[in-house]
């Protein structure tokens, strides 16, 4: 991203880190008339939401794989469509492949999904629309919670009460009895929640898979995965538990649009510019020091970087209380995913899918047939190992957007779960090919000619997530999405209101409330908080 060659040495606001939340915050602050500078260490903005050409002509969405959770206000407030952002619709949302060649598709259309589910269980087919209707309502509550600055419990101020009221009012129609049910559901495990509704393991597996995204434990034993499930649902552009669509040009097109929008609103953006220190004077943030020694002044500094980078690297520990540092140290990251990207000479043929297979595989293709399968994919992670039967989430974006690969060729991107960041044996750099090979092996069970289609592959290990994309312990959302790291406890109890314990220093990364995913909510909430504080 080119910016002005001569940037002024003084800004109202400096944003450290050009991930999507940093760019959203920059956009909103620039729009409010502040002078804003975004500093990005890599040669491209976007953080985990980038398009990279690992092989000539093949443009991969390196990590984040969809923008279906982006807050619609962000799109309109920042005019992203004008800057080239477009989501190409996909349907079905999910195709769950089964080892016996059968499959279950979840479509936008509830009735069509009911027909699919009938193949496995008529009881579940009957339950599905009720489940969708009921959970959708609950997800609206979570959606409202996402938009608020969490109250600083147990101290509840007048401002918090206002926020609380705004979150309760849209759901009062549900009735208090149902709101009680919400309290019951949030701390449940996704397996327990689905057991209350469904009988078929296959139906439960298809639905449960997305609930363990960004969580390092299994669906069966992790209380709180129901909350994560609702979190995913709350922002989804489908009104269902999983979002859909392909960003035209790959995920980088979104962050490029955010950058263009910010620039058009007056912000400056510098890439290849590493911040090595957040400058503090008399307990107040005064700007940043760059790797080249240059200092830039600002009244307000926002860190869009993760908590470890911000507080263990960029801020002088002298200014932090030991208790705060302790809490930063104990943030739970536990990354458990890798991405494997394939450049394909042609589309593989999935043997279980008869005619219309291209249509069926346009959304997320899951290899996570049952809840037990997903749980077992996780079990070895506890001991620093990984299962040879992982949970795979596959996308073939070229079926929707042919512009990202040479003509006739395809891209397949696979999220592999669970792979532990901390291995008890071996190291990730040596295991790159091993991972690619076992993914190819598994996929060959479903598409026997898959191996022949692969021209090239690129593996992003949990260690790469940390080293290349600055995601501690390979966790893409800057901290597990567990119940103890939600709401007023995210990122750290007592600091959930986007303010760091240093005057003038703010936080806006996925480490903050409401958490991970390409939502833009963190950046938007943080900028709102900053503007309120500056009043």
């Amino acid at each position, binding site marked *: 991203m080119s910016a002005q060659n001569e940037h002024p040495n003084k800004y109202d606001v400096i944003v450290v880190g050009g991930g999507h939340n940093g760019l959203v915050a920059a956009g909103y602050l620039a729009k409010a008339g502040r002078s804003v500078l975004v500093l990005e260490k890599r040669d491209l903005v976007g953080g985990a939401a980038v398009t990279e050409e690992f092989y000539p002509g093949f443009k991969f969405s390196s990590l984040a794989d969809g923008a279906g959770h982006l807050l619609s206000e962000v799109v309109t407030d920042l005019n992203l469509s004008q800057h080239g952002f477009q989501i190409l619709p996909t349907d079905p949302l999910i195709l769950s492949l089964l080892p016996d060649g059968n499959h279950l598709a979840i479509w936008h259309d509830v009735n069509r999904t009911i027909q699919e589910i009938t193949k496995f269980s008529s009881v579940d087919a009957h339950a599905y629309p009720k489940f969708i209707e009921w959970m959708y309502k609950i997800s609206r509550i979570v959606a409202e919670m996402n938009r608020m600055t969490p109250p600083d419990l*147990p101290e*509840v101020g007048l401002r918090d009460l206002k926020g609380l009221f705004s979150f309760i009012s849209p759901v009062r129609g549900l*009735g208090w009895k149902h709101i009680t049910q919400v309290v019951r559901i949030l701390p*449940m495990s996704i397996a327990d929640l689905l057991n209350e509704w469904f009988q078929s393991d296959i139906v439960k597996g298809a639905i449960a898979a997305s609930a363990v995204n960004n969580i390092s434990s299994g669906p069966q*034993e992790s*209380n709180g995965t129901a909350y994560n499930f609702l979190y995913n649902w709350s922002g989804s552009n489908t009104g269902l538990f999983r979002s859909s669509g392909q960003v035209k040009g790959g995920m980088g097109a979104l962050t490029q649009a955010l950058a263009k929008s910010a620039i058009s609103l007056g912000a400056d953006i510098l890439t290849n510019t590493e911040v090595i220190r957040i400058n503090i004077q008399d307990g107040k943030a005064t700007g940043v020091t760059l790797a080249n020694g240059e200092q830039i002044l600002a009244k307000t500094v926002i860190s869009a970087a993760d908590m470890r980078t911000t507080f263990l690297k960029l801020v002088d520990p002298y200014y932090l209380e030991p208790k705060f540092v302790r809490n930063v140290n104990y943030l739970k990251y536990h990354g458990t995913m890798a991405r494997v990207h394939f450049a394909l000479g042609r589309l593989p043929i999935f043997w279980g899918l008869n005619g219309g297979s291209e249509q069926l595989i346009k959304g997320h293709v899951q290899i996570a047939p049952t809840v037990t399968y997903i749980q077992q994919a996780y079990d070895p992670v506890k001991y620093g190992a990984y299962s040879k039967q992982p949970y795979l989430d596959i996308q073939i974006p070229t079926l929707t957007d042919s512009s990202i690969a040479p003509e006739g060729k395809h891209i397949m991107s696979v999220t592999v779960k669970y792979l532990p960041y901390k291995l008890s044996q071996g190291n990730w750099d040596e295991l790159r090919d091993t991972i690619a090979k076992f993914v190819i092996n598994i996929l060959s069970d479903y598409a026997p000619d898959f191996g022949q289609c692969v021209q090239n592959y690129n593996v992003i290990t949990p260690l790469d997530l940390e080293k290349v994309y600055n995601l501690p312990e390979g966790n893409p959302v800057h901290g597990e999405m567990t119940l*103890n790291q939600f709401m007023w406890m995210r990122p750290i109890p007592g600091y959930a209101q986007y303010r760091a314990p240093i005057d003038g220093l703010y936080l806006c990364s996925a480490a903050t409330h409401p958490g991970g995913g390409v939502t833009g909510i963190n950046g938007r909430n943080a900028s709102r908080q900053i503007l309120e504080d500056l009043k």
Partner: protein
Amino acid sequence: MNSLTKNYDAIIIGGGHNGLTAAAYLAKAGRRVLVLEQRHLVGGAAVTEEIYPGFKYTVYSYVVSLLPPRIIQELQLPKHGLHVMPLEGAFTPMEDGNYIASYSDEDDTLAEIRRHSKRDADIFPVFNIMMYDLARAVKPILTMIPPDPANPGLEGLRTLRDLGGHLKSLGKEKFHWLTKIMTMSAYDFLREWFETDVLIATQAQIGVIGTFLGPKSPGTAYVLLHYYMGELDGASSTWGSQRGGTGGVSEAIAGAARSFGAEILCNAPVKQVIIKNGQAIGIALENGDEIVGKTIVSGCDPKVTFRTLVDEKELPSDLVDAIDKFKYRGSSGKVNLALDGLPTFPAMKDKALIRGMQEICPSVDYLERAYDDAKYGGFSKRPFMGCIIPSTVDPTMAPPGKHVMSIFVQYASYDMPAHGDRDQQREAFGNAVIDSLVEFAPNIKNLILHKQVITPWDIEQTVGITEGNISHGELMLDQLFFMRPIPGWAKYRTPVRNYYQCGSGTHPGGGITGTPGRMAAAEILKDGN
């Protein structure tokens, strides 16, 4: 059977310790009370039985720690035979021959921890203070009548206000620890404090007791706190064993109830609650007898209370639905041994520890693997075990020179034996327990005179607790406080007028606490019944 012709103010179904506690309080308040117990003895899961001649087994439960002093005092339980002897300490052998121990004397415990890590020894007292602070913070909540947020009423609003005020009074730091402990896994929580794996394991095992979760499963840190509350000011300053076996606790409560005039009838299984026009008016026994009572109280678990004892048509369908979703998942079994002599743990340097608890949880991974082994159905090949040898401190338990060993075992799933012949499965489970114990106490196999193996299924069959869950339902966040057993019905009442619940399936939950029984009795009296 003359007494049965009487009109009772209250009939208690189930003579477990909570039913007996409710009976005692109601009788103390002048009510005519009858307790009906299906078995030949009272106590429910807290009984002592001489299964093998001369040897007394505490058949299902094993330690006493959670009984609040208030109940002990109000019911004058020591007068009726309550005599809890604190355990000497706890001993945990490790796989490498080393061990860790804890003692009632904190200095001794610290010296022991220091052997493993100076850092952990330094921080242990701070951790203890924090845990007791948290236990103190939760304690008032345990004795609050849970409000129904959907329909709070004036009283509920007052409770909610008190609750808010209470939480605020904790201050930020304690409140934050509280919210963390409510949501984290025992392991993650402890890992923030300690570096010694075996020390974490000895604490984390407390967090999994009675749940079908591993130490790394979120939700288990709360269970740890639940048990800390017992240590706060329970019957003893630490875990202890009742003289004559845990049945003695039930006997003491029964004695108190009788002294206040309550009648207790054993071998009297109840078939159904008799309901007329939405109001409970009596019960029908299995033998066809009917007994009239103004108030009927179930000390059974929620499924029995609502689904077995009451006709479905008497209940709203959403209640039936919610009760059917209530999670039990019994996870623990019991092995009781009659021994020809004392077992020897080679790792045990301080021989006095044989009079304490021997915990087989040598590492966090051991615990977690025990869980992984069993969680898809079946039992742990190398289970987590809590052993006590009560005969070392209580000569009434076994003939001279002989001993009884009471082994609490986790994990065993309820539906384990369904996969095959139940007797074979029980045998295999028992063998896994002994084989695992032999790793740490090699001579034990040769000392066994008699062995009793109990699976969750056996607990259900004999004691009547659904799926054999010792807490009458998992102590998980979604089944606590105003959601225990289900939202809307956490105040010991039921939709059937004059029909109440008082078992561990109600707030505040399991353990030998007597608290549900005591609180239910107070609510019944408040209703003027």
